């Protein structure tokens, strides 16, 4: 019992923080209400520290906890400054004018606790080893985000987006739930390792295949992948930019962790050389990945709103990451070096990409959320047309350069972080001999270059657009900080790609390779990250396929 609790320390801390924040948000004193964001940040910091020290778990990916949870908490910490000032702007100014305190109008506490509950959901997805747990974790991720979208702004568009997001979310939930029921029906257990064992021993029945496919299709709502990507542009555009930034990362992370767990039930032990998914599931994922990245990139070309463009870019990046899931963990010959193993590991590449994608996309959204102005009636107007960004480097050098760096990184420009994300995905897909998929990815990366360059060159090269009303930017210091931190991260984290890559590689460790070796692996990842250059040379620490 206590061992199981040790897996949940970050979640417990965040839950306590969420409860405290919910109460403090109703305080009569302005200073106490305003401290909600700081307390949330403190809780996330403690959770990040605890996540880093997470123990091994019993499941399909024993080493997933430290890397997965740390990535989620760190990116949430990056998003938190963006969220300050999303709600309660006009309410606080009314209070400052001397209006009486009205607990029904104050939403600040709820907003931050919903944010924390959603982060808890993502963390629970990481450690899920049971279908019931996974279902609850996915729902805990999504339910608070519906409220966050609907309350993020006073504009009608936000509420429309919230309703749309909710209904399609419920549809997706029902579909993957049906998939879970089929998996349970095929194996008679909800425990994921036991399901995997049953499927290995008894073979994969059609009903189990149906279950896995339905689960993948349902979860594709969370990761904004085809065939359930339609809502993405509308919801991102309707929600306030900071909340859209959160939607671009958190449900996607939850979905990819969930997909890892779901696919681990059938295992990457099929195909000619025993390193592929079962043929029919592989085809489903292949088509989904190719379709998702193509739809995302082609439709992004047509957008004039930056938020819609980012939504389609988010779809496209889901497509790239799906290829990592398709490849799965690499099969290791004893002779190869750890570097080449890490380069062949599709799951590690996917987890690495998830982290880089979080940093880059939050950076772009941070710049967009600084570009707000207000009507006389104090409703915010977001300046999210590409025209508004022209000449940004001259008007707002810091924001402009942050935007340039983050969008070039999303494009995959070589010295930046995004390039390494793409590199590892490409090498893993090539190592799995999926050559057609590599060509599709390369064509898509080229299409993506067009609109990312438009996003980067507009602020850099063009003259400021005089026809548009000059953006009176809301000086939001915290949001600017997020933009700067992301931009710095995109450049500076390049120096730590190797340790991060090793960490993500160790996160995909499968059971069977862990006799004595695995705890050491985690240890070396932690020390490696702290000192900046680990030398993991022991092959026993790397994921090994164990088709027993």
């Amino acid at each position, binding site marked *: 019992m206590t061992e199981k609790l040790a897996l949940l320390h970050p979640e417990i801390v965040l839950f306590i923080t969420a409860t405290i924040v919910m109460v403090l948000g109703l305080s009569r004193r302005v200073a106490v209400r305003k401290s909600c964001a700081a307390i949330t940040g403190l809780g996330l910091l403690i959770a990040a520290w605890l996540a880093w020290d997470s123990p091994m778990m019993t499941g399909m990916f024993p080493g997933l906890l430290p890397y997965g949870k740390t990535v989620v908490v760190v990116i949430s910490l990056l998003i938190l400054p963006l969220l300050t000032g999303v709600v309660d702007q006009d309410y606080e100014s009314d209070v400052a004018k001397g209006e009486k305190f009205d607990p029904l109008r104050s939403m600040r506490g709820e907003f931050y606790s919903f944010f924390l509950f959603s982060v808890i959901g993502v963390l629970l997805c990481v450690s899920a080893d049971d*279908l*019931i747990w996974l*279902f*609850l974790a996915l*729902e805990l991720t999504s*339910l608070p985000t*519906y*409220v966050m979208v*609907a309350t993020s702004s006073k504009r*009608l*568009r936000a*509420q*429309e*987006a*919230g*309703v*749309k997001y*909710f*209904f399609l979310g*419920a*549809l997706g*939930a*029902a*579909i993957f*739930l*049906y998939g*879970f*029921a*089929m998996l*349970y*029906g095929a194996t*008679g*257990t*909800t425990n994921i390792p036991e399901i995997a064992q049953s499927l290995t021993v008894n073979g994969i029945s059609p009903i189990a295949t149906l279950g896995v496919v339905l689960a993948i299709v349902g979860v594709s709502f969370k990761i904004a992948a085809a065939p359930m990507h339609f809502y993405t*542009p*509308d919801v991102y*555009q*309707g929600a306030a930019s900071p909340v859209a930034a959160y939607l671009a990362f958190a449900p996607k992370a939850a979905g990819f962790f969930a997909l890892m767990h779901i696919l681990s039930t059938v295992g990457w032990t099929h195909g000619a050389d025993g390193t592929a998914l079962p043929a029919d599931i592989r085809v489903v994922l292949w088509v989904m990945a190719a379709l998702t990245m193509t739809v995302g990139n082609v439709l992004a070309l047509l*957008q004039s*709103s930056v938020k*819609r463009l980012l939504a389609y870019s988010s779809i496209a990046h889901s497509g790239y990451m799906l290829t990592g899931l398709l490849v799965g963990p690499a099969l290791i010959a004893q002779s190869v070096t750890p570097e080449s193993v890490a380069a062949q590991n599709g799951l590690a590449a996917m987890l690495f990409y998830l982290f880089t994608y979080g940093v880059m996309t939050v950076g772009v959204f941070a710049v967009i959320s600084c570009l707000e102005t207000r009507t006389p009636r104090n409703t915010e107007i977001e300046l999210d047309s590409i025209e508004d960004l022209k000449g940004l480097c001259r008007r707002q050098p810091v924001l402009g350069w942050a935007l340039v760096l983050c969008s070039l990184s999303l494009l995959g420009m070589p010295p930046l972080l995004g390039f390494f994300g793409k590199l590892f995905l490409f090498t893993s897909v090539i190592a799995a001999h999926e050559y057609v998929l590599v060509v599709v990815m390369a064509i898509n990366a080229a299409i993506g270059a067009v609109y990312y360059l438009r996003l980067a060159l507009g602020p850099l090269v063009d003259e400021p657009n005089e026809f548009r009303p000059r953006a009176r930017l809301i000086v939001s210091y915290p949001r600017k900080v997020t933009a700067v931190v992301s931009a710095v991260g995109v450049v500076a984290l390049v120096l730590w790609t190797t340790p991060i890559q090793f960490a993500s590689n160790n996160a995909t460790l499968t059971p069977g390779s862990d006799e004595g070796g695995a705890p050491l692996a985690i240890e070396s990842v932690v020390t490696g990250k702290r000192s900046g250059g680990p030398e993991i040379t022991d092959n026993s620490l790397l994921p090994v396929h164990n088709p027993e």
Partner: protein
Amino acid sequence: MSGLVDMNLNALLAVSPLADVTLYHYLVVSAAMFSLGIIGFLTRRNMIIMFLCTELMFQGVGLALIAFGRRWMDHSGEVFVIFVLTIAAAEAALALALVVLLYRKKGSLDAQAWAQLRG
């Protein structure tokens, strides 16, 4: 005592019209509920009806879970259903709040009344 109850139950089941109902029947009903839910969700535009359709899908899944639980003589299915009901209740609260919000702003329950987001 419990053996007696079981015997009575079995005797009852043997003569009851439910004796011939197999897992297969439950699954067909569950799949029908789920499909009706999806069809209704995609074709109807009234928010309340759309929400009821998602509920229908959830309950269809619940039926399948209970039937599978009985098939495997395992309680996980029933436990799962209880959690599904909890989530369905949470979603109901959220859906009704959003529907009330829609109705206050637009005076209509038509999903197409909200079409600001196009592009």
